[in-house]
């Protein structure tokens, strides 16, 4: 596949979908319903603004989104109080599908959202965006409404405020450029066309989401791309430039944990696809170092990348969606 051609045909700028009146008309014609999910953990400073802007702009002024739900991992601050005070539906992740138990991690919230939310399209938006704007949602929904063959739309952020040269590097954050893109280049070169594979904002059709498994931790975005690519190829993807995203910057050590989780997910996928073969059991402990009183000591973090199975295999979900029960595997 010619990657430049793919990028040209499948890369958008949010302004292409800014005519919300037209977008709503097309949405209504298509009969699609759209749910917005914001996974949270201690986001009281930014969540109020996200809810108010999305609700008033994309539900009240233009009925593009049918529901907004906060799925929370057990915030200790006022995240849920603030969100519900502005009219969002709020859920505790552990109270959704309680018979399936509860895991910690953003991926868990995203997975449970498939059960809890009703839309044919689910849009996931991180809660820590300081410069939130309706474009974060309509920019991702647009390609799905206008192009039925597209199933998964990923955000990327570009347009630096000032750049003196006509050629500039364009890409993702540190983990993307140091880990993910090199890995994609080694094993799945076509996926390198996704400019920011780890961005936390994407919109996906339910019929694709419900069939993929979800690592509950850092690997969820990577596994999505790999699994959707394995099943549908690049034709399922599109990406939208949402301009600038202002958010908290993470320390390098935190990025180390993130990379460790992503790498586990990636290697597990390589084994399960049969891309590489090995009996080696991947370790789940990340070791970092710190100095105390001039002595070096190891700090160990156990970061197992537990995975939730495809939602469509969960009995309660099948019942909710009117699907026949799966036959027991003997």
């Amino acid at each position: 596949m010619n990657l430049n051609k793919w990028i040209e045909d499948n890369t958008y700028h949010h302004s292409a979908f800014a005519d919300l009146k037209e977008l709503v008309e097309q949405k209504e014609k298509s009969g699609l319903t759209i749910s917005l999910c914001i996974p949270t953990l201690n986001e009281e400073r930014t969540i109020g603004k996200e809810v108010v802007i999305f609700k008033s702009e994309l539900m009240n002024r233009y009925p593009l989104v049918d529901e907004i739900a906060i799925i929370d991992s057990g915030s200790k601050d006022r995240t849920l109080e603030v969100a519900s005070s502005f009219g969002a539906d709020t859920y505790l992740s552990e109270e959704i599908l309680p018979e399936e138990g509860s895991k910690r991690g953003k991926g868990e919230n995203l997975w449970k959202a498939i059960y809890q939310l009703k839309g044919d399209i689910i849009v996931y938006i991180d809660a820590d965006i300081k410069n939130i704007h309706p474009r974060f949602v309509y920019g991702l929904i647009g390609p799905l409404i206008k192009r039925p063959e597209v199933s998964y739309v990923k955000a990327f952020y570009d347009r630096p405020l000032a750049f003196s040269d006509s050629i500039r590097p364009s890409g993702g954050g540190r983990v993307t450029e140091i880990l993910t893109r090199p890995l994609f280049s080694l094993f799945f070169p076509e996926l390198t066309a996704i400019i920011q594979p780890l961005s936390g904002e994407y919109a996906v059709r339910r019929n694709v989401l419900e069939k993929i498994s979800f690592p509950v931790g850092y690997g969820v975005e990577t596994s999505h791309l790999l699994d959707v690519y394995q099943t549908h190829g690049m034709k399922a993807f599109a990406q939208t430039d949402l301009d600038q995203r202002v958010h908290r910057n993470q320390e390098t050590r935190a990025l180390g944990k993130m990379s460790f989780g992503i790498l586990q997910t990636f290697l597990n996928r390589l084994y399960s696809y049969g891309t590489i073969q090995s009996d080696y059991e991947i370790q789940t402990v990340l070791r970092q170092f710190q100095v105390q009183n001039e002595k070096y000591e190891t700090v160990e973090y156990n970061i197992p990348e537990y995975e939730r199975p495809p939602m469509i295999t969960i009995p309660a979900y099948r019942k909710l969606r009117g699907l026949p029960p799966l036959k027991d595997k003997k």
Partner: protein
Amino acid sequence: MILEELDDYLVQLEDFRETVLSTMVMVNEIPAPTFKERNRAEFLVDRFSELEMLNASIDEKDNVLGIIPGKVGDRDILIVAHLDSLFNETVDHTVTLEPSMAIGPGVGDNSLGAAVLGTLPFIMERIGLELDANLVLLGSSRSLGRGDLEGLRFVLDNYKRPFTAAVCLEGIRLGRLSFSSIGMLRGELTYRIPEEYDWTKFNSVGAIVDMNDMINRILEIPLPRKPKTTIVMGQMEAGTSYNTLPTKAKLRFEIRSESEEIVSELATRINFLAEEMTSKTGAKVEFKEIARRRPGGTDFSHPLNTISREILKRLDIKPRITPSSSEVAALIEKGIPAITIGLTNGENAGEPEESVLIKPISKGLAQLMALLKAIDMGCANES
């Protein structure tokens, strides 16, 4: 009749508080220091166009204007909110929303005013409020400081039809009513020591000390108790480090008086002090007039002001009548009955942590709707 409808408005407008809030956040996060309001104007003109207002456009001064046509359309009522803010582009303009308040630089002055302007057509359509008169919505540029109301003045000089009355929107404070303008002069004193200055000269103390002396001399000028007169020392810039004698200083001040003559007289005296200091110190001290307003306005008993007070009382808000040197002054100069109203309460005005309370916004909106209806029914006309 209008007062009776206020209770209904209050209930209906609860539903629009979040629409206003969301617009306010988006307006506020577009920096708009005076003379750089273009991006904010573009945001609002998009809103006006989406809402299918007539003549939605940005003019050569970066004012944004749109018209809600009236059922009869024989009169034009002007609603104005200034777009510029006190904060420059380098300040983080992010707004934080808490359940009871919104916090961010400029939310009250005047992102909330601009947001209400931007959502007014939507709200009026949803609650079914139609006026006989045309409603001209103006987001005015170049209002503050050196802007000296340039945007609004441009519209008043060039709009082809007369305005029956005008309402100016300010984010804070609910209960505020300004229908008169005091005499005002904004001035700037600059002190510059020339390059060839002889620092060995006795008494070379630098710009700060000399400017301090200048301030003391200004404060020694006797001010009359009647007509009420004050001089506000608002801003000063000088110096670079602990141990360098500063060669430049700048003082910004405002003379306010109920009498135009006293304003002129004080300006002359300050100019004289500047000349005196130039001759005494060898530094160059210059006085520059930045803006001037003539005192004026409508009477307390003018029907527009009377109904404004009655609306507030019905909403259980105590009217706070204050003269103004902002938009209302330019309107008064043109003989247009005008009033400034506040839309909610807030704190830390002019600070990066400026905040506005969310709940009272619906009262502010109800006040505006009732006032528009009253003006439409002719209450701005003196019998």
